[in-house]
């Protein structure tokens, strides 16, 4: 797709807060001599009645920290005919744990046993069937916020009641999961298209059973078998593909995928991965834009 007499792919990076990740992507694009424009979406407005953007950009890397902002930026670019990574649809699926689990499960990807209830009583019944300990998560939310591990019915009832009393309607959707007995680490894989560009173990910080880097965990490069690598790649494909962070746990019967992230943080992974992660991401964007 050649435009305005120039055949070099023009890249836009949309973001709200400039973090390590967005700067690294920008720097790698510059090193590759890719025309790149940083779009701070908070200092711009977007004209929804024009198609002018198609002359200016070929591909968008959507890097907003705010899910709703990012989702809609992808929608704007896509409507103007520009390839958005990730697409509106993929972002929407990954932003919602219920939708993600549905996709993974339908595609046969091992995922924790999960139930959803829209009523407190039904949630407790579902938990009785799942067994304790169990995990209660919000369907929307990140960095492990509001994720609760409950040891028994009493704890579960307290958590469920506090969720149901909140004003956010999403919190009233009770997403319940079996607790996977796993080592004190989980697996974070970064996928770009059909390539695994990083696989790291994330170790849980002391006094917290979650492993998000945002909560102070540490990383180490993970050496995985072919079967595990295939599951991770299939998980990315199941949600629609793109540049994705796949979170998996090592359960007693192999790995289970529990989350897919559409705006991957890779600062921690960068320090231990043998690949240049942002370079791989930019190269992927150029590759798909040229198709």
């Amino acid at each position, binding site marked *: 797709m050649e435009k305005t007499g120039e055949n070099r792919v023009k890249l836009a990076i949309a973001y709200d807060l*400039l973090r390590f990740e967005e700067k690294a992507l920008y720097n790698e694009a510059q090193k590759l001599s890719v025309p790149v424009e940083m779009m701070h979406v908070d*200092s711009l407005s977007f004209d929804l009645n024009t198609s002018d953007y198609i002359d200016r950009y070929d591909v968008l890397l959507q890097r907003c920290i705010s*899910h709703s902002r990012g989702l809609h930026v992808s929608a704007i670019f896509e409507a103007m005919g520009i390839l958005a990574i990730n697409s509106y649809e993929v972002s929407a699926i990954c932003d919602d744990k219920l939708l993600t689990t549905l996709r993974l499960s339908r595609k046969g990807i091992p995922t924790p046993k999960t139930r959803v209830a829209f009523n407190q009583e039904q949630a407790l019944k579902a938990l009785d069937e799942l067994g304790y300990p169990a995990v209660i998560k919000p369907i929307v939310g990140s960095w492990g916020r509001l994720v609760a591990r409950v040891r028994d019915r009493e704890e579960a009832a307290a958590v469920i009641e506090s969720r149901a009393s909140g004003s956010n309607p999403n919190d009233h959707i009770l997403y319940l999961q079996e607790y996977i007995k796993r080592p004190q680490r989980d697996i974070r894989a970064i996928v770009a298209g059909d390539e695994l560009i990083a696989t790291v173990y994330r170790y849980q910080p002391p006094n917290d059973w979650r492993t998000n880097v945002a909560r102070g965990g540490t990383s180490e490069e993970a050496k995985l078998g072919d079967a595990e690598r295939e599951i991770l790649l299939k998980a990315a494909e199941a949600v629609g593909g793109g540049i994705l962070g796949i979170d998996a746990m090592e359960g007693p019967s192999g790995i289970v995928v529990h989350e897919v992230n559409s705006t991957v943080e890779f600062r921690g992974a960068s320090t231990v991965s043998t690949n240049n992660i942002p370079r791989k991401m930019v190269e992927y964007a150029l590759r798909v834009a040229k198709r």
Partner: protein
Amino acid sequence: MEFECEQCGGQVQVPKDALSGELVSCKDCGSEYEIMIDENGTIELKAAEEVGEDWGE
């Protein structure tokens, strides 16, 4: 470039190569600001947002 901190009146430094959306903080009180640069290149500081409900990867 230097800006005055809204909280303590101290100095907040904005580097020459700053990009819009970058965070800077006041040396004196630690208040965080987000750099906003408009199309004309005018730089403003905005108190950094608290972590939003829908923030995260």
